C-alpha cells in the first residue's frame, strides 16, 4: 500500500466529511442556515446529508487507521509520475483551464484552436502542418458540425465578423 499517499487521501476525505458535516449544522460561514433534520412532514433536508457525512467521516478515519497499520509494500515515490509525464499532465490541466477561461471572451473557435495548437506542442508534436490541420479541424470543424448542423449553442465570440468572411 502506498503509505504516504494513502494517509494524505484519508486525511483529505476525513476533512471533506467533516466539512460537509459542519455545513449541515450551519457551522461553516457561507452556509450559516442549519438544515433541519426533521420538519412537520417528516425527515427534513438535513436528514440524509447528516447521516451520509457522519458515515463518510467515520469511514475516512477508518481508512486512515487501516492505511497507517497496513505494511507498506510499494514505494510511495512510484506513484509520482516521472518528470516528463508530470509536465504533460500539468500542461493538459493548465491548457484546459486556459481554454475554459478563454471560452466566453474569445468564443469556441479561437479557444479550441489555441488549445489544440498548444496542447499538441506540449505533447510533443512538432510538425507545423499537422498541428495546423488538426487545430483547424478541431476548432472550426467541430464548431461547424455542432453549431450549424446539430444546432448546439456554442460561444461565437467577438471575432465572428472576421472569421465568417474567411469561411471559418
Amino acid at each position, binding site marked *: 500500500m*502506498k503509505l504516504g*499517499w*494513502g494517509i494524505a*487521501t484519508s486525511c483529505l*476525505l476525513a476533512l*471533506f*466529511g467533516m466539512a*460537509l458535516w459542519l*455545513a449541515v449544522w450551519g457551522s461553516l460561514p*457561507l*452556509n450559516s442556515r442549519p*438544515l433541519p433534520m426533521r420538519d412537520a*412532514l*417528516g*425527515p*427534513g*433536508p*438535513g436528514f*440524509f*446529508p447528516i447521516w*451520509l*457525512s457522519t*458515515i*463518510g467521516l467515520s*469511514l475516512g478515519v*477508518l*481508512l486512515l487507521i*487501516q492505511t497507517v497499520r497496513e505494511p507498506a509494500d510499494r514505494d510511495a515515490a512510484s*506513484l509520482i*509520475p516521472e518528470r516528463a*509525464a508530470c509536465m*504533460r*499532465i500539468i500542461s*493538459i*490541466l493548465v491548457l*484546459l483551464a486556459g*481554454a*475554459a*477561461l478563454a*471560452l*466566453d471572451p474569445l468564443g*469556441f473557435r479561437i479557444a*479550441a484552436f489555441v*488549445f*489544440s495548437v498548444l*496542447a*499538441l506542442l506540449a*505533447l*510533443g*508534436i512538432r510538425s507545423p502542418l499537422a498541428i495546423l490541420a*488538426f487545430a483547424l479541424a*478541431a476548432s472550426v470543424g*467541430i464548431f461547424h458540425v*455542432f453549431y450549424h448542423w*446539430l*444546432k*448546439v*449553442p*456554442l*460561444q461565437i465570440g467577438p471575432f465572428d465578423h472576421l472569421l465568417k468572411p474567411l469561411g471559418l
Partner: protein
Amino acid sequence: MDTLQLLLNGFAAALSPVNLTFALIGCILGTLIGVLPGVGPAAGTAILIPITYKLDATGGIIMLCAIYYGAMYGGTITSVLLNVPGEAASVVTCIDGYAMAKRGRGGTALGIAAIGSFIGGTIATIALVVVATPLSTLALKFGPPEFFGLMLVGLCLVTGLAGRSLVAGILMTVVGLLLAMIGIDPVRGAPRYTFGVPDLYDGIGFIPVVMGLFGVGEILATAEHPIRDVVKTNFSRLLPNREEWRRSFGAIMRGTGIGFFLGLIPGVGAIIPTFISYIVEKRVSKHPEEFGQGAIEGVAGPETANNAYANASMVPLLTLGIPSSPTIAVLMGAFIINGVTPGPFLFAEKPDLVWAVIASFFVGNVLLLILNLPLVGLWAKILDVPYQYVCVGTLLFCMLGAYSINQSVFDIWVMIGFGLIGYLLRKLDFPLAPAVLGMILGPQLEKSLRTSLEMSAGDFSIFLTRPITLALLIISMAIIIMSALQMAPKEIREGSAD
C-alpha cells in the same frame, strides 16, 4: 397490445431510414470509442450526448444505445492488438486475445469475438423482450420502501465488487451520494451545500463529473503512460476453422447465459461477467494449460458474456430505472436529458419509444457484425493514430460536451476538477464506479427513503414489516458482509473459519 405486436411496431420504427441511420452512426462512433484507448464507454457516451440534442427522443436514444454497445464491441480490438483494453470489460480478452495476435491469429480472435458478441447480444435481447414486460408490471407494484431496498442492493453490489478495499468502496459511494445532495433539496426546496455560489443551486451536473472522472482522468493517465506498439496481424482469415468453431460454441453459449443473468442484477459491473466466463471456460476446458497462451475459448466466452451483459443490463434500467454500471448511468442521464425517465412507468407511458429502442438492439447487433467483420482491418488502422491527437481531440469533445449541457463554463471547471480527482483516485486504487452510481441514484434514494419515512410518520420499522423490502435489506447486508469477509486479511479469514 401483446409483446410481439409491440416489438413489431418497434421494428417498424427502428428500421425507418432515419432511425437506421442514427443506429449506424451510433455503432460507428461507439466502435471508434471502444477502439481508442483512453476513451472509455462512459466518457465516450457522455461526450457524444450533445450530438443528440436536436434529434427526436427515439432517434437520440437509439444512437446513444448504439454508441454504448458499439463501444463494448470496439474495446476488443485494442485488447487483442495492443494488450490494452479499450474499455474495462475487455481486460480478460487481453490474456488470450493478445496471445493469439502474437501467434499471428489476431484476425481469428477478433472474428470469434465479433461473432460471439453478435450471438450473445442477440440472445440477450430476445430474453430482454421476454422479461421486460413482466418485470416492469411487477415494479409498478413497488412502493418507495421497495425502491429504496432495490437501490440499496444495487449500491451494495457496486461497492462490494468495486475493488480491493470495502471501506474505500463504501466511502466512494458516500462521496457520490453527497455530491448528489448539492443543490436544492428535491422534497422541501431548501438549498444544501451551495455555500452561496449561484452555480451550485442547480447542483453539480452528472455529465461533467463523468466526463471529468472517466474522460479527462483517463486522458491524464494515458498521457502518463503513452500507448505501446500495435501487434501487426493478418486480417485475411477472420473466421475460425472447424476445430475452433467446435471449441467456441460451448463458450459462446455459456458466456451468453453468464452475461445475461449477471446483467439483470443491478450493480454488477461489466467486468464481473467476463471474469466469471473466463474462469468457467478454464474449468470446463480439456486443455486448461492453453489458457494464457492463446486459447480461443478465452476470447469467445468473455466477449460473448460482455455483450450479453451489455444488452441485459438495459433490463434494470428500462424496467426499474436502476443503472448497473457507470456507462448505463450515463445512458440514464442521457435518457433524462432527452425527456425520458427510465423506470416501470416507461413501458406504460412511452411504449412506442421503448419498443423502438429494444428493436434497435437487434438492428444494432447486425450492424455491428457487418461493421466488425469486414472492416476490422480499418478499425485496427485507427490504432496507428498517434495518441497526442486522440488526447487533444477527446479533451476538446469533453470540453464541448460539458459546456453544451447548460452553456456554462462552470461545468467545464467541474469537469477539470473531477478530471484531476479521477486521475488521483485511479492512482490510489479508489474505485470510481460507486461514486458515479451513488451520484445518479442519490436523489432517488433520498426521495424513496424520505417518502417511506413520511408514510410511516418517521418509523423505521416500515423497512422491516414489508417482506420485499426486508428481503432486499437482508440481501444488501449479506453482500456487504460477504465482501468484507472476502477482502479481510488472510489471517482474519482463517481465524473466523476456525
